[in-house]
């Protein structure tokens, strides 16, 4: 048994561990709004989250995994010494897992995304130095961390303002909801289908062009519009509070967006677990540092299942603590917030940008709040997030750099 096999096993195990961690912790953030609004029970939320995370990871996950695998540190620097690249990626995945664990212990709201980016940068800096890092990509990624919550928040703001102006402020909220609801269903399905098929189905040897994807997605969206139209017509108006009824009518829509959000979560976050592992696997298989070999599909499946498993086993515990505290997000608000998150994360995923789903969610909730949709938002939390953000990248980087040195000491170059 040689060193490379040991490294492979360690890498896959650590990647799997990260995936389970991501599933266990972040699933609460992707499903919290649905549970809080009563749209889904905890059990159902966890199940939906697990399944959608797996699909998202497998179907769309490769874009971001590629960025982490070969976008930050140019693998060509390691053409002569592929082993160093192995140690580096292993150090990155171990270092960030270590940091996330320590941070969780101290209850810091860290993001696995920021940690893994920090981890890859850390070993990159000590191995190939400042010049070996693709700083333009690093800057893109950091920008995407700022832009994704802001953009998502903007989408949520617009969506909730539409709901408020057209439904909640009208004389006939239920009638208006019946008219506008199917549109939302259509748009959500359009975005979901677009995200899946545009550049998504390479693994199935289906590679649609943008126009083809757009056309297919439009058709699917239109079909969804009609299904929504028929379903919503069957709703019988009751004599109770119309606003409450509007909220009840929004529940199926919220479940739909929550699923898309879980899908996008899996798509973006699977890279945090398997990105470096993919790099390791590729090197071990080809014995050289190649740019061309794609992220292995089986690895995405392993990562996706890991996230799904983590969500399924521990998700309920995290959601419970969330559900007790939140009482304020109703289905219309939840829909607006989740919609913005899903759109923002899916776009970033397609651009290969590893973003923090949790932070995007926060941006979206604030977006709904700015549209006067939420009764109380504690903005003090933002300070905590910003500080954890600023700490995460360098600390995970330090851990990774130290581990890299340790591996070289252990295995030699």
């Amino acid at each position, binding site marked *: 048994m040689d060193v490379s096999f040991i490294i492979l096993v360690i890498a896959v195990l650590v990647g799997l561990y990260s995936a389970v961690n991501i599933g266990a*912790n972040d699933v*609460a*953030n992707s499903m*919290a*709004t649905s549970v*809080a609004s009563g749209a889904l029970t905890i059990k159902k939320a966890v199940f939906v989250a697990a399944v959608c995370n797996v699909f998202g990871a497998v179907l769309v996950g490769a874009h971001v995994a590629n960025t982490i695998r070969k976008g930050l540190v140019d693998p060509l620097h390691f053409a002569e010494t592929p082993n160093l690249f192995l140690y580096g990626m292993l150090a990155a995945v171990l270092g960030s897992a270590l940091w996330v664990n320590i941070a969780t212990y101290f*209850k810091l*709201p860290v993001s696995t995304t920021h940690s893994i980016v920090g981890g890859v940068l850390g070993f990159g800096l000590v191995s190939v130095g400042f010049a070996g890092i693709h700083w333009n990509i690093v800057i893109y990624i950091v920008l995407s961390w700022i832009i994704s919550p802001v953009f998502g928040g903007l989408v949520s703001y617009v969506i909730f303002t539409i709901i*408020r102006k057209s439904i*909640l*402020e*009208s*004389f006939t909220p239920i009638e208006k909801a019946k008219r506008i609801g199917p549109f939302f269903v259509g748009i959500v399905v359009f975005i979901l289908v677009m995200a899946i098929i545009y550049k998504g189905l390479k693994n199935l040897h289906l590679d649609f062009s943008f126009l083809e994807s757009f056309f297919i997605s439009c058709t699917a969206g239109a079909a969804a519009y009609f299904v929504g139209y028929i379903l919503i017509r069957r709703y019988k108006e009751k004599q109770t*509070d119309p*606003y*409450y009824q509007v*909220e009840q009518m929004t529940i199926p829509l919220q479940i739909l967006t929550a699923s898309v959000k879980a899908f996008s979560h899996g798509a973006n976050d699977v890279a945090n677990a398997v990105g470096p592992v993919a790099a390791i696997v590729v090197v071990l298989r080809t014995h050289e540092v190649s740019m061309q070999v794609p992220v292995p599909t089986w690895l995405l499946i392993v990562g996706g299942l890991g996230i799904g498993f983590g969500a399924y086993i521990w998700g309920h515990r*995290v959601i419970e*603590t*969330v559900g007790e*505290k*939140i*009482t*304020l*997000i*109703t289905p219309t608000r939840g829909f607006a917030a989740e919609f913005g998150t899903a759109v923002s994360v899916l776009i970033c995923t397609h651009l290969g940008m590893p973003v923090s789903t*949790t932070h995007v*969610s*926060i941006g979206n*909730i*604030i977006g709904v*709040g700015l*549209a*006067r*949709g*939420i*009764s*109380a*938002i*504690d*903005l*003090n*939390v933002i300070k*905590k*997030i910003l500080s954890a953000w600023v700490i995460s990248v360098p600390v995970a980087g330090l851990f990774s750099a130290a581990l890299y040195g340790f591996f070289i000491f252990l295995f030699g170059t």
Partner: protein
Amino acid sequence: MSIISKLLGKSPFEPLHQHMLKVKECVDLIRPLVDSLLKEEDEKVEEYAKKIADAEHEADLVKKEIRNNLPKGLFLPVARGDILRFLKEQDNIADSAEDFAVLITLRKTKLPDELKEDLREFVDKVLETFNMAVKVSNEINILAETSFGGVEAEKVVDLIENLKTKEWEADKAQMKTARKMFSLEGKMDPVSVIMWMHIFKELGNLANHSENAGDQIRIMLHNSKK
């Protein structure tokens, strides 16, 4: 624990309504107190006065709880100051009810028989005013649900208009009662006259604070229109 749950603070709106319900418990005791007063059942008057004081204290606790849950960093759909001022006015209603009960028990001030009917009417008008304020307060959760705008906001503005009319009627009843008392001043001892003036004023305040609470909601609605 998830960061999202930390982000979502506790909504002040349902507690504001809970506070109003506590204030209502307090104010609802005024009628039985006045009835006992008019029947000159002193023990019962004392008993009701004590109950009012207890209810006022409970309302105070709810008020404190709401204030403690409104830190500065909280982002709300309406201005934090508007909420706190509304809470203050709502709480003043309970304070007036308590002060009224205290003034009645301070001194066994007799009310001339001729004034009894007027006092009863005055109390009716004040309680009607207060109950309109309760109706406004009942809407606060729905206002939060509709983001303080649209048809629901218009409905609440109408309720506030009614509240203002009621308060005006209460004012008139107060004046009428006071006027009648002064027409009887020859028959009454001066201290009693002063005491009753104070008592009337406190009842009038109860209606005033009810109106102010409604006005405060109107300010919230107005500010959120921008």
